């Protein structure tokens, strides 16, 4: 059987593509890093892929606001092939800048695909500055197949614009539909303020999915915790058997195989 294939999107300023590709290799998938210009001229590349990943970075330098310009490009130039991709039940994963792009393109929360105006956003951190730190995440919904099998995860965040914002009615709907996949928590697994919620996200939201569960975006970086020695306290606590970030990639590949049947 053909290995699961992930299309890792590149664009000017995307900068986590190589390690994201590597994470897929570690779980037995094939991954191709494809530039947005090429994807626009060859949208059929999407039909050959099982998973679309929009990695982290600063697409177009975060001009206007993070993710806005690449989101605009997806919406204007790739809307049809992406609708087809989603319609086939394939997975889209947005990490950090990818999450920002998915929300600004109206793919998340995605009550309607490519909805305008978007119903939620990822905006400037409450601290108004870039921060790199490890966070603890509590899985609050297993609607996304990527976030199954564990209650808590640790990963790093590194962003200036990671604050999830939505109106109360949107939050209620997200919650009711099980779209709030993960929240920032403190060491005791409880909802808490800064720094365990590193950016001031409403309701401590770190990642959400669309109503189908197949489109998933999160601010933390799973591709930065795929080896036990990536963990910030491994010299204290010892090398673990499993790296939390890798779980998401494993699950993605598992889901792709399941979908193929």
């Amino acid at each position, binding site marked *: 059987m053909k290995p699961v294939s992930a299309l890792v999107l*590149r664009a*000017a*300023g995307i*900068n*986590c593509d*190589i*390690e994201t590709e*590597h*994470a897929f290799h*570690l779980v037995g998938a094939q991954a191709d890093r494809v*530039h947005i*210009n*090429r994807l626009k001229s060859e949208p059929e590349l999407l039909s050959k892929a099982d998973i679309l990943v929009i990695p*982290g*970075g*600063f697409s*177009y*330098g*975060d*001009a*206007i606001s993070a993710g*806005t*310009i690449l989101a*605009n*490009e997806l919406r*204007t130039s790739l809307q049809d092939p992406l609708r087809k991709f989603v319609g086939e039940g394939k997975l889209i994963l947005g990490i950090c800048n990818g999450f920002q792009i998915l929300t*600004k393109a109206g793919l998340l929360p995605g009550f309607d695909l490519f909805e*305008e*105006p*978007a*119903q939620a*956003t990822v*905006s*400037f*951190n*409450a*601290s*108004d*500055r*870039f*921060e*790199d*730190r*490890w966070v603890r995440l509590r899985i609050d919904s297993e609607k996304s197949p990527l976030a199954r099998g564990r209650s808590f995860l640790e990963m*790093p965040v*590194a962003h200036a614009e990671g604050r999830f*914002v*939505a*109106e109360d009615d949107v939050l209620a709907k997200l919650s009711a539909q099980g779209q709030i996949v993960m929240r920032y928590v403190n060491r005791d697994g409880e909802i808490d303020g800064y720094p365990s919620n590193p950016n*001031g996200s409403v309701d401590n939201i770190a990642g959400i999915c669309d109503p189908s569960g197949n489109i998933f975006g999160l601010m933390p*970086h799973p591709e*930065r915790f*795929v080896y036990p*020695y*990536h963990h*910030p*306290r491994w*010299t*204290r606590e010892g*090398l673990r058997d499993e790296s939390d970030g890798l779980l998401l990639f494993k699950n993605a590949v598992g889901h792709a195989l399941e979908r193929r049947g």
Partner: protein
Amino acid sequence: MHERLPGPLLSSPLFLFEEAKELIWKIEVSVKTDKDDPAGRKTHRDLLAQGYSEVDDVKVTEVYLLDGDLSEEDVLSIAKRLLADPVVHEFKLTSEEQESAPASSSPGSHVLEVYGRPGVMDPFEMNIRRAVGEMGFEPRSIRTARQYTMRGELSKDRLLEIGNRVLANPVIQEIEVGKRPPRPETKVATPGRERVEIPVLKADDAALQKISLDRRLALSLPEMQTIKTHFTALSRNPTDIEIEMLAQTWSEHCIHKTLSGPIDFMGEKFSNLLGETIMKSTRDLNLPWCLSVFKDNAGVIALTDDQAVCFKVETHNHPSAIEPYGGAGTGIGGVIRDILGTGMAARPVLNTDVFCFAPPDTRPEDLPPGTLPPLQIMKGVVSGVRDYGNRMGIPTASGAIHFDERYVGNPLVYCGTVGILPCNRVEKAAHPGDAIVVVGGRTGRDGLGGATFSSYELSEESEVVSSGAVQIGNPIEEKRTLDVILQARDRDLFSCITDCGAGGLSSAVGEMGEGLGVELELNRVPLKYAGLSSVEIWLSEAQERMVLAVPEDKVEALAELILSEDVEMTVLGSFTDTGRVHLTHDGETVLDLDLEFLHDGLPRVEKKAEWNPSPAAPLTIPSPAPDAGSILKTILSHPTVASKEWVIRQYDHEVQGASVIKPLVGEEEDGPSDASVIAPILGSTIGVAVGNGLNPDYGDLDPYRMSAAAIDEALRNVTAVGADPERIALLDNFSWGSADRPQALGALVLASKACGDYATAFRTPFISGKDSLNNEYRVGDKIISIPHTLLISSIGVVPDVRKCVTMDLKGIGHHLYIAGFTRPELGGSQYAKALGITGGEVPQVDAEIAKKTFIAVHRAIQAGLIRACHDLSEGGLAVSLAEAAFAGNVGATIHLGQVPVKGFSQEPSPHEILFSESCSRFLIEVQPDLSSAFEQVFEGLPLAKLGETSLEPFVQILAPGNETILREPLIDLKEAWQATLRFS
């Protein structure tokens, strides 16, 4: 409001309003009133912190100006669908017709807008243009600005002061009070090109010196005389571009004529100081893992059988003094290009940054005229490194900050980058017939004269004279360029590559053409705007450009690849075998220089160096000795020692998924790591550790020992985390006040000699270096000179990253050891500084014991015998123990009587043991069951068990005789360490 943009080489530019034919739209995007405005809150905090307490609150609005053939409907669509976020933003749309006069808003509310000055690059403009184009619109111009609405009782003067001091940097930005109505872009108008001859043939010495001074060539009289002789033989005068190219090539910045020139050091003669000290040591060591040293943009060493690692550290001091944000950003951008231009292109995998500033709490009245407040410089520099490095996707994971009053006019900004490349792509060479290709950004007037500018002292007028030297970075342009260059390397599409740095195309093409020849048309150089003179095109230091030599038959394939990712490339000419650089502009020869004269014609003038220090005075500890706990907390809170977490967290130090030992470690991930470790070949457990050593306080007393101590510190750092002491390479970066005064040059000679001596003794070769020798600030007749500052950077190979060790104490009931001798060495120490006392001995390195100690530490780490290892540096044993304890949240008790001491003429006092800064020492935590195995590794070396770790959250220190001289709660020590540089 529009002032002339000054610059040494700009020939009277004028700013004109262009006739507007189309409507200009202004879109103001602000945060909805019911949503939080973090930027406004932060600006308000900054204003309060700087004493503007009359401001009650601040609101920040992003402003976009669009003009072109756009209807109101078009602009509404752009605003709604692109510029304003529907969830958090609201926007207001006006056109010049709708709003004719600046509205001065409601009473008690003041509006101020910050615009980029004409000609200053706006990195966002191109990206926004792409997005607007994607929606089907083609505006003629797009500009961005920031608007601040401040509430409070503010006079107009006060408002202007806020604008010029806090919100804008007048060097690159201008402010408008009240809302500026949309209006056409101001254009930089320029006269056309003309051939200019420089009359050297008939010039006498005074006239030659005047030419050098007037054109800011930074050429000495003997150099001007050499040029005159050369052109006399040719029976013609040089053109302006010829003399500018000579000045650039012969600048201290580009050729390092002091360090590589003849020096008489009190009778001891050097014909090439660096060559006979530092480089000689590397040559003599002749280590097989050194793949390329002192010849390329960076030094290269082997990492594995097929992968190599390269490292370069640059200074970007002068631009950062005038425009900290842009200066630091382009500093990191420049050193990244150095790595991209090393061998046949290396992939950058780590950035380092080391800064020297005046203390952040310097009072405004103590600032010399023309200098920026140190805190503002620091915040600007950190933001500049953050925004450039983070956008490039390169982790910034190693660094240091040193504070001293004497950096007030000359802050130091050292930016470094590590890269990896295949071992078989280390060598490169251009060939006659190869096309000369420029890839990346366009050429404008940015940074003109940077190479020669850095050869002058700074003064009050520097801001005015040299703002042409300020460059603005566009990291996304550089990231795009990096992406395509690495693909081109892997497809073997070029034969040689180098970066455009100081001296621009002149330097890059001139260096690559050495031994060949150059034929180039200046008209082909892609420009940001029309009207540049020949000199401006050739010398521009516009960022984000790389120069490649490309075999004729590969040009097309290269172009196809590069254009496919929206990067520009242009063939400018070709390399020849004529031995000459020949440039044409509009078909006319503007430059025709002999390459040999260009590279080897510089006359060498012997400089005098001396060192006559006053004899070392003894250091006397006050009696009765002050409380050790208070001294410890004073040292921990000194900004040089204090936590840099506020800085470190703003850098993405984990991008690329290679981070193994992070800059912050420990139970709460906030302790100071000795060095960072990455595993840059994904999937391999081989690692690279990077550290640094710098201690200018020692240099005041003994530059030779300072140099040795910095090397020892850089080696300790990487050894402590697990690097192999037999596989460490070093870089030197000298920043001196002046090399013209014999005493300062004498200090430089001694520091260089120590580098050579200790690199040989440690078998740790220097592989690259850089110097910056004009760091003085003139205030009237008074000169403020920086202290002699030598930064030593180290890069070490970690055989297996899974064996790495961190500095935080790990467990209860573990044994604590000290390795290395403690000597009476408090000269230049943090202890002396804390007590305000002087004198004493500067730490001296015993390389033989040190190397053996490093090897023993490494063996013990490899054998898994060490739980924590922290080096002893500023503040000595006391600081090291405190840091290890609070980072691990583990208490500790030690007995000073156990510490191995040497060189004391009488019984050492507890303070001498506790705070001495003797080199080559480590604090080590070992599990009790491994103690005897650990001790065996250190047989014959100075090692002693000092005490144990404990559950009690205290650091406790017992003097000989078991008297407790220090007992401090971890939480108090940590707070002292964290509070100083904790900014909101």
